[in-house]
């Protein structure tokens, strides 16, 4: 068979080198100019105690999601791979190990669950790995070698990558891994000589790889991040790791705090002291931060909080994706507590979006919650990021010399934004507190003051709208079916729209990084032009749909998926087709 796009999943247990397989594949594909997306799924338990998988989709065309179905499932660990057979496409392939030790009963055998529609290929993975490395390691390289032959991929693309990935481990490790790769390749060449063809342009330029977490960290560093405080939590920890490594080089600081409350407290302190600062967490951490977010609102101290969403509630599903934190991001905390909520849709937006988040937070003295998710944060993908490096940028509203003479930290202004200074400026004395306060910052509980200050804090949001990027309409503007989505679900929506288009159904999508506030007139115009509106998202309640319904009075078709895996484009396409059938009746 000939392919221009392939999806492969390595499935095993922690310690099988599954994540390394994804890394090697991604690097190899990017180096020869292919588009690639890798999604790692692993258990929350420690090494050797749970399922781990890496799904790799590579193509000659741009990818927006993980797509639907697997062309190949590599079952490194039989029992754990059985359930993944349901994801194998019709006529898809399964590689399995024929060198497992000890008898296996039918119900525990991966092979016995392979249906006639699929194609099973046995190879002695463990045996060849032992032969190459003299240890139990190297199974992943054996299977990569087999895959290389199976799809007629150039071996050198993997050999180069193996050298690069294992460079820090020395020549011996490189050599045994290349040997494992070659043994897998030769085994398939001898036993399954009839291979497939992956066709691609061999003159393509190499592409860059990143993850959403990488892009957020880099974006923040490039726009002047000076201080990071956080507490490790899956799937956000990578951001802190990068900050810890890179910030000191730029004269900044990274602190691991005792918990998330302390982390955001430290971040508020840094902003108060005039430094761009950030924390990153996930749902449980965001819950803990709500009180401090309220302080940020009340005291009008800028802050940037990245929330890489995972399955919840509570500890929930630490290593699975979900978009269930929209409500807490929008409404979490006490009182009337306005904040900006943004949700990047891909890695490019993670980079540019986090810079916008800093600019808005600083300019409007508000918390900005940046809602990424596990899939977007951890997936590795080829991207074209337009770098924007300005580490001295400052968007804060500074007081004029007249304002400094009688400094009013919470001065009432038309746009709701008051002048902001770094404490310690001679003559400019002010108080900052979580209590309601006067224009000087002194506690004041009068009804008139509270009304005035609340209105001021909300008035900022009318001004913010003017600084926001416009929402983008994608697809066919004449279509009757419109889709509104957010975050990483956008990728699946785009591919679902394409599947529908192939069936002759036109759709359009309104895509915006801004969840709150939004340029409402654009959304109103878009919704008014739709006969059917579909809102897919990865949570049970339909949190974004609820927001849109209350804000725009629409009655959308809602797709609520309390997700563990990224949304299936096919599922979205099916909803589109259903909507189209209803329109045709």
């Amino acid at each position, binding site marked *: 068979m000939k392919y221009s796009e392939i999806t492969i999943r390595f499935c095993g247990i922690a310690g099988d080198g599954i994540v390394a397989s994804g890394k090697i594949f991604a690097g190899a594909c990017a180096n020869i100019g292919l588009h690639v997306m890798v999604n790692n799924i692993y258990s929350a338990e420690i090494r050797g105690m749970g399922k781990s998988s890496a799904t790799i989709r590579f193509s000659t065309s741009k990818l927006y999601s993980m797509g639907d179905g697997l062309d190949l499932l590599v079952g490194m660990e039989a029992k754990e791979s059985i359930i993944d057979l349901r994801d194998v496409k019709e006529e898809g392939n399964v590689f399995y190990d024929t*060198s497992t030790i000890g008898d*296996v009963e*039918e119900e525990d*055998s991966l*092979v*016995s669950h392979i249906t006639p529609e699929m194609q099973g*290929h*046995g190879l002695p993975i463990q045996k060849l790995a032992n032969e190459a490395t003299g240890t139990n390691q190297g199974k992943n390289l054996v299977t990569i070698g087999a895959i290389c032959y199976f799809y007629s991929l150039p071996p050198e693309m993997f050999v180069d990558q193996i050298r690069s990935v294992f460079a820090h481990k020395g020549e011996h490790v490189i050599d045994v891994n290349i040997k494992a790769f070659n043994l897998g390749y030769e085994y398939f060449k*001898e036993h399954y*000589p009839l291979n497939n063809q992956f066709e691609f342009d061999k003159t393509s330029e190499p592409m860059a790889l990143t993850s959403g977490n990488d892009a957020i960290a880099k974006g923040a560093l490039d726009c002047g991040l000076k201080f990071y405080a956080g507490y490790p939590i899956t799937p956000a920890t990578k951001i802190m790791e990068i900050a810890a490594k890179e910030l000191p080089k730029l004269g900044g600081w990274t602190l691991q705090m005792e918990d998330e409350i302390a982390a955001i407290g430290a971040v508020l302190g840094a902003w108060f002291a005039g430094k761009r600062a950030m924390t990153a967490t996930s749902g449980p951490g965001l819950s803990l931060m709500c009180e401090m977010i309220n302080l940020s609102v009340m005291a009008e101290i800028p802050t940037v909080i990245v929330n890489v969403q995972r399955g919840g509630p509570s500890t929930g599903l630490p290593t699975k994706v979900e978009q269930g934190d929209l409500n807490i991001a929008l409404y979490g905390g006490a009182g009337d507590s306005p904040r900006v909520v943004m949700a990047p849709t891909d890695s490019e937006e993670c980079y540019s979006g986090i810079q916008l988040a800093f600019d808005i937070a600083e300019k409007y003295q508000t918390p900005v919650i940046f809602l990424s998710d596990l899939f977007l944060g951890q997936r590795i993908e080829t991207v074209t990021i337009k770098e924007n490096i300005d580490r001295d940028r400052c968007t804060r509203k500074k007081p004029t010399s007249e304002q400094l003479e009688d400094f009013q930290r919470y001065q009432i202004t038309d746009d709701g934004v008051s002048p902001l200074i770094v404490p310690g400026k001679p003559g400019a004395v002010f108080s900052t507190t979580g209590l309601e306060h006067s224009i000087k910052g002194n506690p004041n509980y009068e009804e008139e003051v509270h009304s005035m200050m609340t209105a001021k804090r909300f008035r900022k949001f009318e001004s913010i709208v003017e600084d926001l990027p416009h929402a983008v309409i994608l697809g066919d503007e004449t279509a009757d079916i419109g889709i509104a989505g957010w975050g990483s679900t956008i990728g699946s929506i785009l591919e679902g729209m394409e599947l529908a288009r192939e069936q002759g159904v036109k759709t359009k999508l309104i895509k915006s990084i801004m969840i709150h506030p939004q340029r409402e007139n654009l959304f109103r115009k878009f919704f008014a032009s739709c006969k059917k509106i579909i809102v897919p998202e990865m949570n049970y309640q339909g949190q974004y749909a609820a927001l849109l319904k209350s804000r725009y009075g629409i009655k959308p078709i809602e797709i609520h998926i309390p997700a563990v895996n990224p949304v299936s484009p096919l599922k979205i396409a099916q909803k589109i087709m259903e909507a189209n059938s209803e329109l045709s009746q």
Partner: protein
Amino acid sequence: MKHVIIGAGVAGITAARTIKELNSNAEVVVIGDELFLPYKRYLLTEFLCDSIQRDDLLFFSIKKLNELGVKLRKGEYVKSIEPSEKVIKLHHNEVVHYDKLLIATGGRPGLGLVLRPFKKHIHFYYSLYDTLILKEKLPEVHKCIVFGDGVSCLDLICVLHNLGKRVTYITRGERATFGLEEDDFEGDLHEFLEEKGIEIITEEQIVSVEESDQGYKVETIQQKTLTTDIVFAWDFYKPNISFIEGSAIEKKLGILVNTRLETSEKDIYSAGDCVEIYHPSIKGYWINFGLPNALEQGRVAGSNMSGQNEEYKTQEAIVFNLMGTSLKARWWR
């Protein structure tokens, strides 16, 4: 009742179908070592010539297979049988339990000690996999050498000739007979092939095959050197039953069965090209190769596995189409 059938060829599939027809509730598992849905091996030549499409080779589609309720396990082979435990062990150490077992693994070509070291340069023409590889290579092939015996060898020579390739046939015999005795083939087969342009080298055998600048270099026992684009060779065609070693199932060249197709071990049956059965015409045990025998043995075995009591009767002849001439073969005479 769980019926496990080893082999997804004509005999195995016919048995599976028979069992389900007699008892639709029976659990039937068919284990085949090829990567494809069960197909009609006897149509491979027509597929190679593009007379039929790949789907035309199939016994049934996936849909039909599912409707029939037969569980097919492709690309798997059996390592061993333990009749006392009523289990078979597959190549990846999976243990499969059975109540009734049918061995229908057919026969296959093989290489003797002399040619075995050159296996990677030698093609078989036996399975769909072989045929698919051959189909890919054929456009680049002009000259072929065929070394072997039997009807399938003759079949290969014919198809290569019909596809416009220059064919050289090497045989150990004095004449090219393919082990056949013809009833109604008019004239001499050897001469007939030579008239068609097949080069025949007699009383010879290949002793080495090496890659060369012009494809492959073939050396013979008489120290002839030939060049060719592709080499087909096999020394024998024998039952594919190595996995029964150590199982106590009685065998000679093939598995010995009675006329109910029962082996020496309880609840284990055998059918098709892997079987040796008493043949009244030769008054001894013989392997009844060929499609009609495989079909009938599959039916009888399936029936008996389902509790019936049927006896197998040898089928009379196979019909072979040789370049437009119909040839009836009864090679056991």
